[in-house]
C-alpha cells in the first residue's frame, strides 16, 4: 500500500460567530494558507479534493456546492463530499491515493454552526421515530453518559474538571482557540451545573470556522520538498445507534479502530482527541490506552473550540503540526460523529 503524508494544514480561528462571512469567505483564506504552505496555486495543483460539511448547521441544502466556488475548479476537478466531519473526507482521499487515482489531495471542512441551535439541530440526527420527536439534545445525551460514569465510579467530577483545566491551559498556546485561560479544578467545580451532572465548561463551545489539509504520497511530498508526517494507520468504526445497548462508559468502536490503525505499535507522544464533553476525553484516552507519557490535546482540543464538521480533521492537523515542528515523533488523532461517540476514527501519524 502506498505511504501517505500530511504536508500542510491550517485552521481558522474558532469564533463564536463568524458574523458576515459566508461559506466561501470562510473557506477561501484557509485554503490559501495550505496552498501557500506547499507553494501551490489552487485546487488545480492537487489530484483530488474532498470536503465535509452538514447542510443542517446553517439550514440550507447543498452547503458544499457553494464551497466549490472557493476552489478554482475551472477546468473541472476531481472532487467529492461527505456529509460528515472532514476527517472522513480525509479517509476517502486516502483510499483515492491508495488506489492510484491520485498522488495528492486537498481536504477541507467548514462549519457555520452559530446561525442555529446546534444541540437541537443535532437532536434530529437521532432515531426519527423514537428519539428525534422528543427533541433530546446532544448535551443532555452526553450528560446521561457522564452520570453513568460517575455512578459507576469510573470518573469523578474533579476528573472532568481537570480535563477542562488542562484544555484551557493548553489553549493559551493556541492562537486559534476560542476558550483559553488559567483556571483551577476548584474554581471549575464551584460553578453551577448546566445540564446536571455537566457544567457549561464540560461542554465544547459552538464555533464557526474552517480547516484544510493537503496530503500526498510520500514521493510527492518529497518532490514538494516540504516537511511532512506520515499517516501510518487510519481506521474508523461505527456502533449501534441504540444508546441503551452500548457500554457508554467505554468506546468499543474507538478500541477497534485503534487496533486496526496500529496505535499500540509504538509510543504515543501526542494525542488529539475529538471529545466534545470532558468525560468523553477520559473514555477515549482509556479506549486508546494512552498513558502518562502522552500529551493529550495540547491544542486544548475541542473544549477550547469546536468547528463542527472540521474538528476531526483539525485533530489530525494538530498532530501533524507537532510532528513537523519536532515536538513529537508519533501521535494519534481521533474524530467522532453521532451521539455519545457512536462513530469513531483513529489515525496514527509518524515523523518522516
Amino acid at each position, binding site marked *: 500500500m502506498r505511504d501517505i503524508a500530511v504536508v500542510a494544514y491550517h485552521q481558522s480561528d474558532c469564533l463564536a460567530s463568524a458574523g458576515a462571512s459566508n461559506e466561501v469567505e470562510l473557506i*477561501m483564506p484557509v485554503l490559501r494558507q495550505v496552498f501557500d504552505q506547499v507553494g501551490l496555486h489552487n485546487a488545480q495543483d492537487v489530484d483530488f479534493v474532498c470536503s465535509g460539511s452538514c447542510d443542517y448547521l446553517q439550514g440550507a441544502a447543498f452547503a458544499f456546492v457553494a464551497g466549490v466556488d472557493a476552489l478554482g475548479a475551472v477546468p473541472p476537478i476531481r472532487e467529492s463530499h461527505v456529509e460528515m466531519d472532514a476527517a472522513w473526507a480525509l479517509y476517502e482521499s486516502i483510499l483515492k491515493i491508495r488506489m492510484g487515482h491520485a498522488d495528492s489531495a486537498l481536504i477541507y471542512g467548514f462549519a457555520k454552526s452559530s*446561525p442555529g441551535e446546534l444541540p437541537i439541530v443535532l437532536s434530529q440526527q437521532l432515531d426519527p421515530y423514537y428519539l428525534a420527536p422528543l427533541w433530546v439534545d446532544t448535551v443532555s445525551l452526553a450528560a446521561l453518559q457522564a452520570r453513568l460514569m460517575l455512578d459507576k465510579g469510573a470518573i469523578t467530577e474533579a476528573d472532568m474538571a481537570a480535563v477542562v483545566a488542562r484544555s484551557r491551559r493548553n489553549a493559551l498556546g493556541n492562537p486559534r482557540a476560542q476558550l483559553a485561560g488559567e483556571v483551577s479544578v476548584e474554581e471549575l467545580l464551584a460553578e453551577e451545573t448546566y445540564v446536571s451532572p455537566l457544567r457549561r465548561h464540560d461542554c465544547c463551545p459552538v464555533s464557526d470556522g474552517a480547516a484544510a489539509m493537503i496530503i500526498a504520497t510520500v514521493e510527492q511530498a518529497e518532490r514538494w520538498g516540504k516537511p511532512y508526517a506520515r499517516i501510518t494507520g487510519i481506521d474508523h468504526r461505527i456502533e449501534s445507534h441504540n444508546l441503551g445497548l452500548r457500554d457508554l462508559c467505554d468506546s468499543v468502536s474507538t478500541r477497534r479502530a485503534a487496533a486496526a490503525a496500529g496505535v499500540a505499535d509504538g509510543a504515543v507522544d501526542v494525542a488529539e482527541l475529538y471529545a466534545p464533553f470532558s468525560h468523553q476525553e477520559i473514555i477515549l484516552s482509556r479506549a486508546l490506552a494512552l498513558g502518562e507519557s502522552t500529551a493529550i490535546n495540547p491544542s486544548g482540543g475541542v473544549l477550547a473550540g469546536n468547528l463542527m464538521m472540521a474538528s476531526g480533521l483539525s485533530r489530525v492537523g494538530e498532530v501533524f503540526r507537532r510532528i513537523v515542528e519536532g515536538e513529537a515523533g508519533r501521535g494519534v488523532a481521533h474524530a467522532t460523529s453521532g451521539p455519545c461517540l457512536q462513530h469513531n476514527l483513529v489515525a496514527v501519524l509518524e515523523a518522516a
Partner: protein
Amino acid sequence: MSDDAVTGIEAPIYLQYQFTAGRAPARFLQRLKAGQLTGQRCPGCSQVYIPPRGACPACGIATEEEVVLSDKATVQSFTIVYIPIPGNPIEPPYIVANLVPDGANISFIHLLSDCVNDEVHIGQRVRAVWKDASEWDYSMDNIQYFKPIDEPDVPVAQIGKLPVSGWGAGA
C-alpha cells in the same frame, strides 16, 4: 380512536436560524437598497460577477473591486413556468429568464413581464422595472420585473460580453 394499526406519524421539524448574508452579498444588497445593481470583478480573469459571493468561482480567488452595472440586460435564456412552486407566491404562468445585465459576464434569474410570452426570445433586450424608491429594501424584489425594450437583439456570441454602456447606439 381508530382500531387500525399505526402505519405513520407526522414529524413536524421546525428549526430556527439566524441567517447572515456574506460580506460580498451584503455590499451588493446595500447598493441594491439604493437602487443600484453592482457586481465584483475578478482580479484574475477580469470577469464581472453578479450577485457577487466574494470569490471568482472560476479562479477561486477573492474578489474586491465593485463594479456598477446597468439595469438593462439581455435574455440569455428563459422558461415559462406553469406550475406553482412552494415558497414562491407568483401566480403562474410567468416567465423566468436568465438575464445578463450590461457590464456583467454572468446571468441571474429574474421575472420577465409586461411582454408577449410567445415573443420572448434569446438575445432580447430588457430593462428593470423598479418598485417605488420608498419601498426599496435589501432585496432583489426592488426590481419588480424586467420588461422588453426597443433595442436590437444581441447576437448569441455577444451575450454576457456587453460593456456597461450597453448595446445599440452607444456600443
